């Protein structure tokens, strides 16, 4: 500064801040602070959202198991005694339940566990256990008559006890579990018969009924979502790319082209639920496709993803410099050859990135799927495509919604766990998109 004189005390300029200047400076600082607060609020919201989901959902990946030695009593399971699975199938799951009860009683005796007021110790085990045991026995009839160690899924309340969701106090008020049963579970844990560990079944098993949260899983939902993504990829990518090529490279400037452009930008802003109404009215009621089927979900999501893919594809087509086209035309290629042999491959990475982002959007979409019946309770895995496209399935986000509608709080944990799975898939897809962009993007 020119007005700084050597030797004198450092004076910062000649300006003495008067009241007005101070006010202006204070207002500057305030304004800046508002901005910083806004940014931090947004970031805090993100962190809060993610931690809340992870904290609630982490438990879904752990599951409590109880090991029991069950005597597969031949007199009860195979009355005729010829180990014929067809005849043995006549014994329903109700026939297997007493075996678990007996096994529980003998376990209590063998380990010398004495719990005051313990009633119905077999309730510690999931109601699904007898069905699972029946499946094992029917698959291996030679097991009948032997004593075998089974590992059963613990009941949702017992499982919740080891995840902090159920406490001694809450058990007092709960009609489904008693404090004595919880103490018994602790005793089993001490005896090494009960453990909580990672739960792959959450990813692979199908949904389960209202009062069996412990055996519900995401298998059918993941498969359904995967089928829908296949359909979206198979339809939206070619149609979207073809439409973009037409609009960007061939379309004459006329009313039809304008109409198409307006429609595309409008479709990008139509609420997703409206696409669900479209799917219900056109694909299910008019065309007669089955409800809850991945094909309908895939078609609806295709229509929703198209604008995204078209917009990104057009952007990457325009990013290819005209010199490439001129060079190709110059050596005698037709317009079509120019586009398909040169422009399209050069725009490829951009198109792929856009497609993956579009797919990620489609994967998380819920509302339209509710209307086309994907909320149905589906326990059967759909078969392999193409037949599987027409069979009932659910989808990941819809499964989340489904679980939030159930009474047992264990399903809230499952729903948050499902969200974590969904977010992991989305993260992977977006990471691939970012890597593709970094790796292949060309600046001309």
């Amino acid at each position: 500064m020119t007005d700084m004189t050597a030797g004198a005390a450092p004076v910062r300029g000649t300006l003495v801040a008067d009241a007005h200047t101070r006010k202006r400076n204070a207002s500057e600082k305030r304004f800046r602070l508002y901005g910083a607060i806004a940014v931090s609020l947004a970031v805090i919201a993100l962190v809060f959202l993610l931690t809340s989901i992870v904290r609630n959902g982490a438990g879904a990946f752990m599951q409590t198991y109880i090991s029991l030695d069950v005597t597969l009593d031949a007199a009860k399971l195979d009355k005729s005694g010829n180990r014929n699975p067809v005849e043995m199938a006549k014994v329903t799951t109700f026939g297997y339940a007493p075996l678990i009860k007996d096994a529980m009683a003998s376990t209590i005796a063998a380990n010398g566990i004495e719990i005051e007021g313990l009633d119905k110790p077999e309730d510690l085990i999931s109601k699904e256990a007898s069905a699972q045991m029946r499946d094992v026995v029917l698959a291996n009839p030679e097991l009948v008559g032997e004593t075998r160690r089974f590992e059963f899924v613990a009941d949702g309340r017992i499982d919740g006890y080891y995840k902090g969701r159920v406490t001694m106090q809450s058990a007092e008020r709960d009609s489904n579990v008693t404090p004595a049963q919880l103490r018994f579970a602790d005793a089993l844990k001490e005896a090494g018969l009960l453990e909580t560990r990672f739960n792959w079944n959450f990813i692979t098993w199908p949904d389960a009924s209202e009062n069996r949260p412990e055996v519900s899983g995401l298998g059918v939902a993941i498969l359904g979502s995967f089928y829908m993504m296949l359909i979206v990829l198979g339809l939206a990518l070619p149609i979207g790319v073809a439409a973009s090529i037409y609009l960007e490279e061939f379309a004459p400037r006329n009313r039809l082209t304008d109409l198409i452009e307006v429609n595309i930008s409008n479709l990008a802003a139509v609420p997703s639920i409206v696409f669900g109404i479209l799917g219900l009215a056109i694909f299910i009621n008019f065309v007669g496709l089955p409800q809850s089927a991945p094909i309908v979900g895939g078609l609806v999501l295709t229509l929703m993803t198209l604008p995204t893919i078209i917009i990104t594809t057009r952007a990457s087509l325009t990013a290819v410099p005209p010199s490439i086209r001129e060079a190709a035309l110059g050596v005698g290629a037709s317009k079509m050859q120019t586009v398909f042999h040169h422009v399209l491959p050069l725009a490829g990475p951009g198109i792929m990135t856009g497609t993956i982002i579009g797919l990620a959007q489609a994967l998380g979409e819920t509302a339209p799927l509710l209307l086309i019946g994907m909320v149905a309770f589906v326990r059967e895995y759909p078969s392999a495509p193409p037949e599987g496209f027409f069979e009932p399935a659910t989808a990941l986000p819809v499964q989340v919604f489904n679980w939030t509608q159930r009474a047992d709080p264990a399903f809230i944990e499952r729903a948050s766990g499902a969200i974590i799975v969904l977010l992991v898939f989305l993260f992977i897809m977006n990471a691939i998109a970012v890597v593709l962009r970094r790796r292949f993007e060309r600046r001309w």
Partner: protein
Amino acid sequence: MPTTWLILAIAALAALGFVAGRARAMTSAGGDARRLHSLPAYYGWNVALTVLTPALGLFVLWMLVQPFLVDRHVTGLIPDSAIGQGSSRGLVMSDVRRVAEGLSVLEARGADADDIAAMTPEALQDEMAAVGVALGTPMTPAVKAAAEAYRAETDGWRTWMGVAVLAAALGGLALSWRMTDKDFRARNTVERGILFMLLGAALVAILTTLGIVLSMLFETANFFEAYPWQKFFLGTNWAPDFRGNSELAILPLLWGTLYISLIALLVAVPIGLFAAIYLSEYATKRVRTLAKPAIEILAGIPTIVYGLFALITVGPMLRDWLAQPLGFGNSSSSVMTAGLVMGIMLIPFVSSLSDDIINAVPQSLRDGSYGLGATQSETIKQVIVPAALPGIVGAILLAASRAIGETMIVVLGAGAAAAQFNQGLGEVVNPFQAMTTITVKIVSQLTGDTDFSSPETLVAFALGLTLFVITLGLNVLALWIVRRYREQYE
């Protein structure tokens, strides 16, 4: 699945056509590709496309039209006496279709066709229930006969379809194969064909819009036949009752929608706008590279995640910390819950749009303002924001249209009870009260078992159309404002 075989057969014919067409062209040129008009592959493609296009086109058309014709014919077969009290021809027809489906299931499981034909309707119904095809009403002989006719006709037409489609494919093959010789302009023909396909793909956008509008328009018309439009638009009470006598007024739903959207915008607009200003004008490079992607992550999170967040975290928190201590009620799903969470969802929407707009304001305007002695915040407030205002207003309108059409957050966070205008104004404006929106009601009226003849179901289409019109209007308005008031800086 015979349909799969049919498509495979067409594909095989197309592949054969490619090879044959290419070979014929080469032969006609005496094995010298230079004497051909186009590259040899184009002759192959020409034949393959002439096989595929008519065959697949006919196939799709047939699949769409056939159910109509069969339906119409079979409907005529049902005698009036077979339509019970309180039933309708449409309901009987849906039973017929269901029975026909059951017959297919039974035959697929190896039941003998003659046995089924000889069964009484009651026995057949039991048989079907055993394989998982349940009927709502007892099967009458007329329904059974109609179902058998339905199946016979469907099967018959299916066979004819196979014949017709294969004939079309073969015809295309023969025709284009005959046309192929060395002077045939194969490349031009193929390219014209491809151009039409590209155009067709672009037309999907128009078809989708048309589909949306038409599907909702028809059902809305049906709704207004069953329910007076004056009561829908001007009534003040929402009380659907599937036994009839419903009150289906849009006003309480519209109020809930607008109220929640308003709160969402009150959260999103200041935060989003200030965040955009801070990140583009003040933030250091390091802050920007960290905060900008973080805010954009918010935009990539599916709405169901926000919905769950509202349901299990924000809702209970607001209830325990604000609503109950202040005596505003004790519902965890409320206008505030949904509005707040939706506001978070909209932050990146507002901020990234505003960011683009603010960055588009030329540096010379800023420099001019600084040169006159303005501080940075004065420049922003008096120069940049006014210059960017049309764009910002456009962004806010787009965010509003997003908020109005949002579904999952309100389904999980806002509750299912419609605003009750007859309970006084206090109930209606209490932000901690559960309130429902148009989208929530579309979901609840259209999920589960729906009967497409009752106004309680059809009202969803009227609501959907209203929603479509509102969001479309906002989008068009946003675009218009941006175009009309945008300053063009050179």
